[in-house]
């Protein structure tokens, strides 16, 4: 074979190697793009909206007022996560220096559960047992819509929000009738302003029912969700 022919073969082989390399690189890039697209479509974090105006009912210990305040906050789209995030943001606001209702910077809520009304079921009666050792139960609420004792929604789709507070939040100072009442009003009003489907609110502490928040405010009752702002109080549009 002449030298010319050898050179031709050599350059052809070089060209083939380069082409194979380019094809391999392109294939690798295509594959990586496919994996990235797949990863992008999988939910890793809870879906959040863009920052949106959110109403927080903020209280002032000095004059005992509740004032609506607007903040730009990105919240989850899921209602349950949204309710929890709202309460986290609310308490974080009170933990800021110079807060008119100072609270410790702790996570206040274990979880928020939204239960569709009416709530119907049977509860285990404390301490009472039948002869065969089974626990007696009491009807919690009747499914009969005409039963005045049933926990019924005011409008179709109404929900009961069960807020499971953390013990570390409940047991922290300060406490007192006014302070604790204002804390509850702030939470109830904030939920009412942003999640109008909530009609009633119940509180648990670390998953258990408890008599009082920190020795004063009643946690055994079911609170109606309502606008808790003080009439005439100025809205904070910071």
């Amino acid at each position, binding site marked *: 074979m002449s030298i010319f022919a050898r050179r031709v073969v050599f350059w052809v082989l070089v060209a083939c190697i380069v082409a194979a390399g380019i094809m391999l690189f392109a294939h690798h890039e295509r594959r990586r793009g496919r994996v990235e697209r797949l990863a992008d479509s999988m939910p890793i974090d809870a879906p959040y909206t863009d920052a949106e105006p959110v109403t927080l009912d903020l209280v002032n210990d000095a004059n005992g007022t509740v004032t609506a305040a607007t903040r730009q906050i990105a919240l989850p789209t899921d209602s349950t996560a949204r309710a929890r995030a709202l309460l986290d943001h609310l308490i974080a606001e009170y933990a800021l220096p110079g807060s008119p209702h100072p609270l410790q910077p702790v996570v206040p809520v274990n979880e928020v559960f939204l239960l569709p009304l009416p709530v119907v079921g049977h509860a285990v*009666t404390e301490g009472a047992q039948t002869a065969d050792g089974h626990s007696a139960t009491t009807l919690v609420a009747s499914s009969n819509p005409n039963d005045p004792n049933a926990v019924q929604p005011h409008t179709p789709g109404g929900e009961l929000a069960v807020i499971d507070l953390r013990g570390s939040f409940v047991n922290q100072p300060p406490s007192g009738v006014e302070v604790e009442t204002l804390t509850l009003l702030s939470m109830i009003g904030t939920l009412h302003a942003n999640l109008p489907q909530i009609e009633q609110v119940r509180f648990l502490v670390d998953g258990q029912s408890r008599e009082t928040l920190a020795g004063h405010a009643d946690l055994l009752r*079911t609170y109606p969700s309502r606008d808790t702002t003080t009439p005439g109080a100025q809205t904070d549009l910071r």
Partner: protein
Amino acid sequence: MFAPQTAVLGTLLLTALAPGLARGQTASTSPAPATRQTPEPQSFPVAQPAAQPAAPAKPRNYLALLPAPPFNRTTIVIDPAHGGADNGSRISDSTVEKNVTLALAFHLRSLLTARGFNVVMTRDNDDANEKAPPFAPLTLDDRAGIANHERAGACLLLHATAAGSGVHLYTSELAPSSGETAAGPWLTAQAAWVPQSQHLAARLVEALTRSRIPVVNGAASVRPLDSLTCPALVLELAPHTDDPDSINDDGYQQRVAEAVAGALVFWKNTAQPPPHLAPGEPNATAKSQP
């Protein structure tokens, strides 16, 4: 997608919520037959129904067996909140709520006794225990039971706080019932007395304002206010200066107590019981029995 999870969560939550829901104002209040106490011959709950029926106690005072008058205008129940292991809120590094409420209660008791009232205190020392064996610590329901048995003309729940200044008065948040029928469940027994409680609060606001003591008047859900069957309110004492320890000032507490005692004298002469206890209608309560 989440519906099955929600259903399971709902079932689990009902177990946790049930005791409260079963007693709550919007939930069913019918106890199981096994735990139902023998109904007392009165139209409103005096003490919380016990889970297990207690053994009948041997009566020591036969006068106590006579039916109590439905509305003792001259009896005032004072409940100094907290006590014993329960310190209440921390007012300052050296002051806790239970001591302030007890000190204010002593001021009130001496002033009211001097004005001819019969004063009943749920505790008169640091301990907050039952006055009979087994001397168990008083629960909030026990305190309400003590007050309800007295059929008092007024029940004052004393609290203290470092927040704000002056005196904070709270009546029940319950919607007032017509008062023509007996109150219902334990946790909403105060509903029949809410109008009287609001009138009492108004008298106290007037008296405290005349004494130049800052007053905040409102409604709150404070245990065991909603279980009381008397004109009842929460009186929360706050410091009168920026120093939280000023809440211990004897002169300040005396001034508050004098204003409250003066208002209660006026209240004694003007208070009217709810219609179901009004004199001249002896069958009013009987009619309301189921």
